[in-house]
């Protein structure tokens, strides 16, 4: 009797789990929420929230159904733990239910769903365009290589910038101690003199901000003079990029940072990045000393509190600046890669790949997404082939 009973209950539940009343809301939920589920080892905090929502949904659906049909919890339990329900085929059917209690299972369901959607999207693209756009098929190796290169450059830039920044900070502290006690002998540097004039002329306020502004003008002037010393075709690029760590370390800066310009062209960005940082760091140093002198001549002693306040501001600016720079780098790299592809692959593009000139700076995030998608697609392909 009990046997029959449980069999009936199981069959009824299995029937429900295959019916649209169950399938539609559950699939809807999964499709809507699966996009954040990736194959990374670490779980995002948002997964827990989604799992909780899923639990609520399943509970509600099952409860409604059981009420409708007249199954109580005890029946449900005995039915589902009966040997009949334990068969392999039924266990698969029960998976979405069991996933309420098993986060890992839930997670793998969601990850799989996400992959399915990605694969579907790929298929749709293929159908619509006849072939996958280049950016979604080959070139994976090139991309990862490029990315590695990018990372190297970024790391380099960040390191340099940090070094200079630290140096600058320590010098600042030193300066803090010196100012007030010693009035240094000024050099016969014309730049310093010009800055002195500037200081005296700007009678607007006796605040440090004037020094800051002056300091900045010195540095930008210095940059102009330093650039031709590079003496080669890349000098233009040097100016553009030397502006970057400069700003980062030029902590006196309190105004809007100068517009950044990505290097116009650099075939080996890694190689060109080191000389440029070298010249830039030296220019930065001289500018620094001038600034120091200008500072002494002006006879300002900076209140420490204000310094730390401006430091914070500078840090923010620095961060914003670096971000900007990174985006620029990304955009540049993309363009380069596009050009490369355009030259290497002679075949006429069957897919409407956007012309390289019409796609300006694709944001870093989009790029990342694209990369991830590609990776996923590869994985899927692999899996499909294996099957």
């Amino acid at each position: 009797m009990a046997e029959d009973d449980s069999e009936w209950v199981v069959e009824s539940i299995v029937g429900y789990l295959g019916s649209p009343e169950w399938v539609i809301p559950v699939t809807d939920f999964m499709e809507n929420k699966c996009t954040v589920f990736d194959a990374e080892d670490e779980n995002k905090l948002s997964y827990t929230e989604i799992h909780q929502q899923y639990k609520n949904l399943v509970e509600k659906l099952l409860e409604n159904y059981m009420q409708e049909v007249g199954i109580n919890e005890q029946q449900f339990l005995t039915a589902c733990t009966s040997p009949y329900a334990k068969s392999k085929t039924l266990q698969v059917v029960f998976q979405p239910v069991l996933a309420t209690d098993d986060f890992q299972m839930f997670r793998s369901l969601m990850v799989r769903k996400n992959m399915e959607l990605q694969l579907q999207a790929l298929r749709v693209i293929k159908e619509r365009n006849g072939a996958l756009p280049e950016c979604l098929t080959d070139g994976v190796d090139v991309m990862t290589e490029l990315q590695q290169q990018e990372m190297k450059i970024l790391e380099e830039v960040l390191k340099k910038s940090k070094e200079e920044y630290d140096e600058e900070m320590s010098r600042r502290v030193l300066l803090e101690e010196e100012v007030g006690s010693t009035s240094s002998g000024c050099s016969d540097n014309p730049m310093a003199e010009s800055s002195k004039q500037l200081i005296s002329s700007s009678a607007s306020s006796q605040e440090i901000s004037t020094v800051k502004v002056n300091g900045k003008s010195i540095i930008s002037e210095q940059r102009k003079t330093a650039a031709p010393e590079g003496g080669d075709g890349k000098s233009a690029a040097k100016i553009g990029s030397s502006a970057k760590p400069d700003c980062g370390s030029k902590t006196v800066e309190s105004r809007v940072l100068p517009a950044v310009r990505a290097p116009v062209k650099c075939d080996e960005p890694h190689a060109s990045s080191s000389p440029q940082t070298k010249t830039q760091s030296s220019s930065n140093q001289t500018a620094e000393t001038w600034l120091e002198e200008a500072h002494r001549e002006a006879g300002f002693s900076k209140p420490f509190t204000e310094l730390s306040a401006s430091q914070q501001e500078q840090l923010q600016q620095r961060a914003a600046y670096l971000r900007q720079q990174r985006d620029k780098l990304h955009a540049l790299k993309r363009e380069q890669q596009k050009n490369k592809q355009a030259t290497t692959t002679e075949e006429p593009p069957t897919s409407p790949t956007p012309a390289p000139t019409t796609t300006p700076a694709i944001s870093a995030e989009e790029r990342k997404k694209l990369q991830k998608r590609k990776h996923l697609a590869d994985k899927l392909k692999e899996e499909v082939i294996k099957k």
Partner: protein
Amino acid sequence: MGEAQKGLLSVIEKLKGTTEQEVRIVLLGLDNAGKTTLLKSLASEDVNTITPTQGFNIKSVASHGMKLNVWDIGGQRKIRPFWKKYLENTDLLIYVIDSADKKRFEETGLELSELIDEENLKGVPVLIFANKQDLATASPASEIAEGLNLHTYRDREWQIQACSAVSGEGVQDGMNWICNNIVNKKK
């Protein structure tokens, strides 16, 4: 949230076909205490490439005929408010302390005492790992126990275990305590 599962969900909980006893363990502690390193060392995985946890990690470890599901949740200050979402149905709390980070002993003590007061952790045994004993500046476990006033815990089993998640020293001793304790408790 916040209360134990009721109704249908608790029924579903019983549906899982495993014969093994499953144990839910939550691994908490301040950032940089070594939670993920400990987790990976428990799972016999590489501990050299660990980055600060932004979310959470789960590993299932078989030990003493039980399946230990260990949840390691990031310890950064901004993540700590999420801890309490993971405490439901927890069988055991592992709390990890960086024994060399004396400056934050007070902070870690406060966090622990807040956890102890959580309703979901009522009576739940606590194992405290005094981690990073491989560092010369590490405080001995006894000193940390005193600082945390562990001797005042009367409502639960507790244990403090000196360890180094990097070298693995002491970790197994802690796991043995866990298994003995849970076997005793669940029977």
